[in-house]
Every structure is written in structure tokens, then in C-alpha cells.
């Protein structure tokens, strides 16, 4: 946007850096990690390894995009891991290896996700229960439901569905393309639609949003529906990878997703942030894990390092804002 003609008044123009500091940091870290890894091991910078990292990122990425919407709206969703678990079980059982069931399984699973989001959203808006509590409850309930359904892998993906995981468009795995398109679609929704504006407004100041005539409850419910539906979609991706419904799928995904969102610079208080940052957070987590494996570092260290990175990064963002 070109600056307007009336540039009078003693305006302090904030350095554009402030808003983008977190992006610079997260993508800077990714770059450093890539350079370091490619110097340390010949196995890192291969087409196979890079696409592998990106394809793996599609799983966390899909949940994290939904979580970003929720967090920008000023909420939080702790139930996504359990939704993924339920989704993978449900779709595996419904599909049961039969190609003719693919449509039914996919639609029913996504509907289940949307329904969970709807219930979360209704509890949060109509009964005014804090999102943390509602989704913590949902996390626990759905996890319990998951384990009553199955404690061992169940069901089976149809062969055609299983092939999705390995499908490529040219050299690019389908899932990588999917993640890229999903991110772009999310960016568009957040920046260019009324729904996106309202999400930002509600997260920025719910009271002002209400007094401005925004249907706050409806937008918030929409955000939770979207988030849970994306979690259910992630469950479907897991089925395409594993071929069976494994009941441990999705455990810890909620914290991974929140980690990615925060690494991407989205404020936990809402109103500020975006998906390009979240994508960076997802890639950084994926790359860290990959590099540690390539360098033969014990997997025990992975979580420790992730913890350090998140606290360090956020501490750094805070400094930048002062």
C-alpha cells in the first residue's frame, strides 16, 4: 500500500520488522539447520530425504493450520490429538479394505470431526466455559472412546486410498502439494475473507468485536468446527500412510500443533499471527527431528531440544517486541 498523501501529524511508524521478526527467526533457523545438516551428513540434502521431511510435515501441518485459526481467535483446542485418533479408527473400520466404502468413510469421518468442533464451540460460546476446559474434557472423552473402540490396530484402508500416500505429481509427493495448497487456502481465508477478519477481530478484543456488530458466537463455533474437521482430515492422512487404524495415532498431536503455532509467532493471547509462521514452525519441528535422526542422536534428546527451541524462540520474540 502506498503511503497516503496526508502524512502529517507526528506518527511513529513502527519498523515493519516487528511484525515479521518471528518469520525471520523461524525461517532463519530452518536455513541454519539445513546448512548445518548438509555439511554434517551427505544423506540430508537428497531429493528423497527432503521430500520425506516435507511429506511428514503434511500431518502436523494439517492439524496446526486448524489450531492456528483457533489460537488467533483467542481460544485453544486441546482435543485435536484425540480427534485424530478417533478419525483413524473410524475411517479404518468403515473402509474395511473395500474401495466402494472410501467415500462413505471419508465423509463420515470428516462429519464426525465437524460435529466434535460444533459441540466444543457450542459449549464455549453458549455456556461460556473456557476453551481450555471444554477441549481438555473433549480430549479426555474422545481418547476414552478411542480406547473402548480398539486397543489394537483395527480395520483396513482400501488399496486405492493407501496409494494416496505414495502418489506423486511429477517429482513432488501429493501430500506435499496438499500441504502447500492447504496453507495457501488458509492464508487466503485469514487475510482476504470477512470470516478471517472476524477471527482476528475476536482474538484481538472480543468485546470490541461484539460491540462492532460481529456475530461473535457464530464465528467462534465456525473456527472450532474448522479445526476439528482438519484434525479428522489428518486422521485420514494417517490411515493412508499406515493402512490400518492404530489406536495410538495422534497422541501428543495437540501439543505438537500448539508448539508449531507458537514457534510461528502467533500470539497465544489471540489476534495476531498467521499461517506462514505456522508452516515455518511445522517445518522446523520436522527438520529438527529429521536432522537428529540423520546425525544419529538418541530420540530422547528430540523432545528436550524441542522444548529448548520453543522457550528460546518465544523469549526472543518477546524481546523483539519491546
Amino acid at each position, binding site marked *: *500500500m*502506498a*503511503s*497516503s498523501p*496526508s*502524512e*502529517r*501529524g*507526528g*506518527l*511513529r*511508524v*513502527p519498523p515493519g520488522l516487528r511484525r515479521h521478526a518471528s518469520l525471520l527467526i523461524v525461517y532463519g533457523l530452518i536455513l541454519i539447520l539445513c546448512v548445518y545438516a548438509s555439511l554434517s551428513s551427505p544423506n540430508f540434502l537428497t531429493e528423497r530425504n527432503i521430500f520425506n521431511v516435507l511429506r511428514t510435515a503434511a500431518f502436523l501441518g494439517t492439524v496446526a493450520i486448524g489450531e492456528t485459526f483457533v489460537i488467533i481467535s483467542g481460544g485453544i483446542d486441546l482435543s485435536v490429538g484425540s480427534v485424530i485418533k478417533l478419525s483413524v479408527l473410524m475411517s479404518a473400520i468403515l473402509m474395511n479394505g473395500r474401495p466402494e466404502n472410501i467415500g462413505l468413510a471419508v465423509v463420515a469421518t470428516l462429519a464426525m470431526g465437524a460435529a466434535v468442533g460444533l459441540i466444543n464451540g457450542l459449549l464455549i460460546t453458549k455456556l461460556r466455559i473456557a476453551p481450555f476446559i471444554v477441549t481438555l474434557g473433549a480430549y479426555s472423552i474422545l481418547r476414552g472412546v478411542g480406547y473402548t473402540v480398539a486397543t489394537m490396530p483395527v480395520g483396513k484402508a482400501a488399496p486405492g486410498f493407501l496409494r494416496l500416500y505414495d502418489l506423486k505429481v511429477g517429482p513432488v509427493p501429493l501430500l506435499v502439494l496438499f500441504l502447500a495448497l492447504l496453507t495457501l487456502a488458509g492464508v487466503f481465508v485469514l487475510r*482476504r*475473507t*470477512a*470470516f478471517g*477478519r*472476524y477471527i*482476528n*477481530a475476536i482474538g*484481538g*478484543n472480543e*468485546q*470490541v*468485536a*461484539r*460491540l*462492532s*456488530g*460481529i*456475530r461473535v458466537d457464530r464465528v467462534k463455533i465456525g473456527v472450532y468446527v474448522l479445526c476439528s474437521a482438519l484434525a479428522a482430515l489428518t486422521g485420514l492422512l494417517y490411515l493412508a500412510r499406515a493402512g490400518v487404524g492404530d489406536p495410538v495415532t495422534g497422541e501428543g498431536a495437540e501439543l505438537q500443533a500448539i508448539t508449531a503455532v507458537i514457534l510461528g509467532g502467533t500470539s497465544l493471547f489471540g*489476534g*495476531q499471527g498467521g499461517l506462514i509462521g505456522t508452516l515455518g514452525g511445522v517445518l522446523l519441528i520436522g527438520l529438527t527431528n529429521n536432522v537428529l535422526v540423520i546425525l544419529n542422536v538418541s530420540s530422547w534428546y528430540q523432545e528436550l531440544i524441542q522444548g529448548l527451541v520453543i522457550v528460546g524462540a518465544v523469549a526472543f520474540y518477546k524481546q523483539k517486541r519491546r
Partner: protein
Amino acid sequence: MTDTPILEMLNISKAFGGVQALRDVSFSCRKGKVHALLGENGAGKSTLIKILAGAYQADSGEIVFKGQRYAGFTAREAIATGISIIYQELNLVQLMTVAENIFLGREPSNRLGVIDTQRMTKESAALLEQLRIPLSPSAQIGDLTVASQQMVEIARALSQNADLIVMDEPSAILAGQELDSLFATIRSLVEQGVTIIYISHRLNEVFEIADDVTVLKDGRVVGVQPIGEVTRARLIQMMVGRPLEEIFPRATRSRGAPVLSATNVTTERLPRPASLTLHEGEILGLAGMVGAGRTEVARALFGADPLRSGDIRLKGARIQPRSPRQAVQAGMALVPEDRKTQGLFLEQSIRSNITLSSLDKLTRFGVIQRGLETATIRRAQRELSIAMASPELEAQYLSGGNQQKVVLAKWLQTSPSVIIFDEPTRGVDVGAKFEIYQLMRQLAERGVAILMISSDLVEVLGMSDRILVMHERRIVAELARDQASEERIIELATTGSQAEMKPA
């Protein structure tokens, strides 16, 4: 002014960044007198006082206090030499007693460091007695009214042997009788030779208590006079920099048909039924003390608080707004009292702020039409002359006046037929204040019905075509413009009636 001054501040200048807060300000007070310091928000009163308190250092100039020259003070030196400041936000520990607060940080103690409570209580009692303040030294601060707490601050100042006490808008937190007892205390302080600097917006008080007055505007002294030699109109003119009749734009049209009528409306926070009618093209002022229920009326009309009973009609059609959204769709807008927490998204762009309530018109299938939005923003910027470098800038970087214009711009996009302004010019500098008055009048001239809540009586009297006065959550009177006066409104707002008033 022939008496020797106790305090002279000479050629004081102070800048913050690029903003010159004080320019070559000279200010002096006679010993044992009450000197009023007047000025609009941002005129430099606080800065001057903070320099005196040692909170800021002046860039240039000097202070002569009791014959002694100082280039500047530290906060500690200011207190030690006998200067005490009583700020609007009182500095008292709520869980301690009156005596403990008076001696806070200077507790009398024996050789073992044990506090001599008895002596503290006795000295406090003597001090309160001397000021004729009826308070027990052992009362807990948290149990006292704000007015009594203010008295404790005054007692503390006196216990520090203050020769000069600065009171920063002491009346802002006081009501009717409390103000009288503050004045009584001030008079007894003056009798004892203490000098008072009294900061206020309220001209009535200034005429009642002050001996001299200094007016600041835009960081300069625009007038120093004994109070007997100045008129109210002259003071206002000095404060705002133009004659009174030019500040408030006149109405050229007469009011039209009723637009909004509320009958016996009650909400949880507005227990007594309130009724009012708002006409096309008029500005209806709603006056009253803070907490009199004015904001509650606005919230009820706007659907922000659920109605318990009553009837709200807009252009004859019954609307019972159950949410602000319904009120907005019916054609209402609310410019709220606290811009920063209720009106604006400070951390979001000016663009998002301006179009937020009218996105329905700017979207196709939910997608914002960027070109259309930009055109809207440009038009709003032109119409309201909003000074901004770019619409992508976050709203928090705008000045108070420009922030208020952004809030107004947001509502103008919805083409409302009724706009409720709650304290429209609070925290806005004089220039922008003037512009906001012009805009409000222009809107009324175009037929918009305006309800204006304001605590600034000059504003209420200057802008309103009609005035409603509230007292204890009830609308107690309706005054036509030519019946209203500052005294009459204050009387109604503080007592709820004007039984003892002679006809004006």
C-alpha cells in the same frame, strides 16, 4: 501580585522525542494562596507538575523555591524541601490503617527498630484534628470512601512539613458534599500558610477556591491573572484558543420526527425504568455524574445489556435488540466511552478497523473486494481527515483524536440513523476535539439522531440541543438548551432535584 512568591518556575522547557511539551513556561505562586492551573488535556499541566515533583527533569529553566535556586529536583529532594503532590490515583496502602499510611516509610521507631505505634497514632490524631478531618487514625484505608482517602493523603503531605501541596484534579473523584469538605480542608491549610496548586478542568471550582489562575495551552502560558480580574468566558477562550461561540458549531436545522424512542427500559444494571425520545437531526446530551447510569442507558439501547422490560422503537418499528449486531442492523451505532478497550482493535490495521462493521457490503461470497475496500478507506480518510501514514498501520500508533475518528469512520460505513457517543472527546487534544464537534454537528445536519453522553459540562452545554440529566440511575430532568446552565445541571446531577433553585 505583589506578595513574594514561594515558588517560581522560570523559563521551563521540556521535550519528549520530537514533541515540545513545555515551551519557556514561567509560573509563580504567592505564599499561602490557592493557585489554579488550568488547561485542556495535553496542555502541559502534568508535565509541569512532574518537573516540580522531580519525576521529570526540565531540558532548560530553573526552579526557585523558598528563595533557593534549583536546576532541578530529584523526587526525594522535592519532598525534603517541602513539596507534596497528591495525584488522582491515590498512593495509599489499602490494607494499612490511616496512621500507618501517614507515616509510611518514616515510621517513628525505638532503638531496636520496633515501630512506636502509640506515638504514630497520637501524632496522626493531632494532624487530623488540626485539619478538622473527622477520621480515626486506626481506621483501615480500604474501608474509607475515596474522599476520605484523599484527606489522608493531604494529612500525609502536611506531616512531611509540606509548604506547597499540588492537587492534581482532586475533584474528579469527588461528589457534591465531599467537594465542600475538600474546600474546607484547603481553606484551613491556607490559613496555616500552606500554598496550594489546584489543577482542574472545572471552572466553577476554580472561581470558588482559587486566588490566582494560570492557563496553559499547547505547552505555553497563555494567561496569569488574579481570579477577580477574569471572567469565565475569558478563561474558556484562553484554554481552547478561540471564542466560545466558535468552538461549538450551531445547528441550522430544527429537529425532525422522532427516530428512536425508549419507553420504561430496564436492564440488570439499570433497575429503574428509563424513557427517552431521540429526534432526527438533533443532538441530545445526557449529563450526570460518573456512575449515574448514563453508559447503562446507552448499552441498553444498543443491545449490549439484555433488556428486562421496556420497549425500544426505531422509526416506529419495535426493535428489542438482543445483541449489538441487531442494533447495528437496525441502524444504530455506538462510539464507546473507552476507545482503547471498547472501540478499537489497537493491534490491528486501520484498514481492518474501519471496514469491520461493513464487511457485508464489501465482500462477494465472503471474499473481501480489495479495491472496493481501499476506496472506502480513502473516502473515510478524506471525509474525516484522518491523519495516517498508511491504512496498514496498526491503530495504536494513531493519536487519540485520530483513533476516535477511526471509530467514527467504522460506523459511518454502516450509514446509521442513530449514533450514540459516549464521552466523544475524552483524551483527545483540542484541535481534534474541535473537528469531532464539527463532524457531530454535520451528521446531525444530515438528519442523524445523536445521543451524546458527556461529563464535560462545557461540551454538554455547547453541543446539545436538549439535555437529559441522570442521577442515581434515573433520568431526573429534561432541559431545553436555553434553560440549561452549568449550575442547574450540577444541582440536578448531584441531588436529583432542583427544589432550592430559583427560576433561572
